[in-house]
């Protein structure tokens, strides 16, 4: 064989079945350049392997269990939610919700209520728009991920969608704040899209945590029929363009309303 490529050497190192293992082995035996290259690859990967992982004590498994047990114990008494999440509200989701609150309050001109007698400094329209755009762009992307996962889920039997549900619940809280804020700052197109998204998220959040293939199909159809993913992509792209323009809206009074219109 000719000199193996770097990719082939990597596959050879991992003994992947689709690499021509025998041919590479024979080549390495007679080609000193390739052998030297392969040895360097081995050293690199051996060094990566030496990276330490923090030690856990022998009691670690018991500690994990003791933290888990109270959550598992709730299984018997719960209906839709069999077990509460360890994260409760995941830390990262909590960050999202916190950010939504701050953004909404900031844009609404009531940053913190610490000095009730002192008026907050005015926020310029451009700064306000940029904050909203960054936050909403992020929110739309996260929402899109949840809906895409649901749309792409394939199953013939029962499907556990509890993880998507938890994320939908968290997003729902943010979504309300963004929708109200969008209305308040004169972004009716964006508010309409968020209104549609809110209904879809609410439907996901309120579905049973385990759904049959038929229920899932019906949920998927509703998401697809409303074209919500397409609208989110269009608005997301417009949000990104506006972010790049420093928050300046396109010409016209509707701001992000130039996105595809409502179907309801």
């Amino acid at each position: 064989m000719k000199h193996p490529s770097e990719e082939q050497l990597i596959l050879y190192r991992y003994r992947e079945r689709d690499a021509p293992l025998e041919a590479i082995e024979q080549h390495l035996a007679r080609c000193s350049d390739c052998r030297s290259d392969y040895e360097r690859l081995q050293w690199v990967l051996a060094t990566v392997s030496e990276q330490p992982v923090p030690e856990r004590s022998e009691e670690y498994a018991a500690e994990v269990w003791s933290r888990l047990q109270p959550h598992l114990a709730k299984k018997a008494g719960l209906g839709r939610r069999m077990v509460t999440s360890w994260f409760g509200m995941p830390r990262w989701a909590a960050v999202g919700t916190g950010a939504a609150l701050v953004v909404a309050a900031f844009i609404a001109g009531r940053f913190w209520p610490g000095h009730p007698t002192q008026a907050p400094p005015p926020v310029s329209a451009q700064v306000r728009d940029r904050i909203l755009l960054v936050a909403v762009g992020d929110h739309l992307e996260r929402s899109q991920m949840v809906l895409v996962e649901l749309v792409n889920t394939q199953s013939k039997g029962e499907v556990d969608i509890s993880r998507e549900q938890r994320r939908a619940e968290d997003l729902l809280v943010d979504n309300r704040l963004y929708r109200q804020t969008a209305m308040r700052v004169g972004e009716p197109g964006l508010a309409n899209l968020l209104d549609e998204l809110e209904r879809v998220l609410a439907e996901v959040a309120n579905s049973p945590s385990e759904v049959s293939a038929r229920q899932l199909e019906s949920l998927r159809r509703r998401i697809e029929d409303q074209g919500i993913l397409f609208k989110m992509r269009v608005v997301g792209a417009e949000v990104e363009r506006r972010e790049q323009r420093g928050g300046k809206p396109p010409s016209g009074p509707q701001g992000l309303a130039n996105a595809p219109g409502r179907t309801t």
Partner: protein
Amino acid sequence: MEGNDAAAVLQARAGDADAFRVLVERHSHKVFRLAYRMTSNEQDAEDVVQETFLLAYRRLDQFESRSSFGTWIHRIAVNCTLDLMRARRRHNDDRVREDDMERPDLLESLPAPDPLPDRLVLSAEARRRVQYTLSRLSATERTAFVLRHFEGAPIEEIAKILGVRVNAAKNGVFRAVKKMRQALEPLVGSNVQAWPGVERQEQGMK
């Protein structure tokens, strides 16, 4: 062990919490190691361990007993970790990383390694470079690499876990390995003998 796992799963499904405890005890160390390799953060790894076992408990009915419980729980752990990594990418932690991306390559700004370093110094330098490179990998590259390199998962399995085509998983591994080589090979230089598992020769010591 796997046979015992199957029995424990059956008992846990029937509501026997002690049977689930056995599964947690058998697999929690491995799940922690995987989560740590993927996150490089102890607290995140601990959170992933908890979330993984909670999800597994909730989804025990979906576990097909002909497959391996170890593989199944690993798959859940990877998904939990990916969720966390995606979310992080969108929040504060990643703002730091984005800032980082705008800076000139930090590897280049690291001081050049001592031409004749002590083995410990070299190991520390290598560790720093591995950590740095891991932190710069995309979620797909990092997951594919961790699963292939540390967990020994075949590329087909990695593709299934990531929900991507086999070629995409393979490319993730290739890109990750190439980045590791770029980061580490400058250290090899003429000091190959100082590398792990390789005896140093007198001529390299001066």
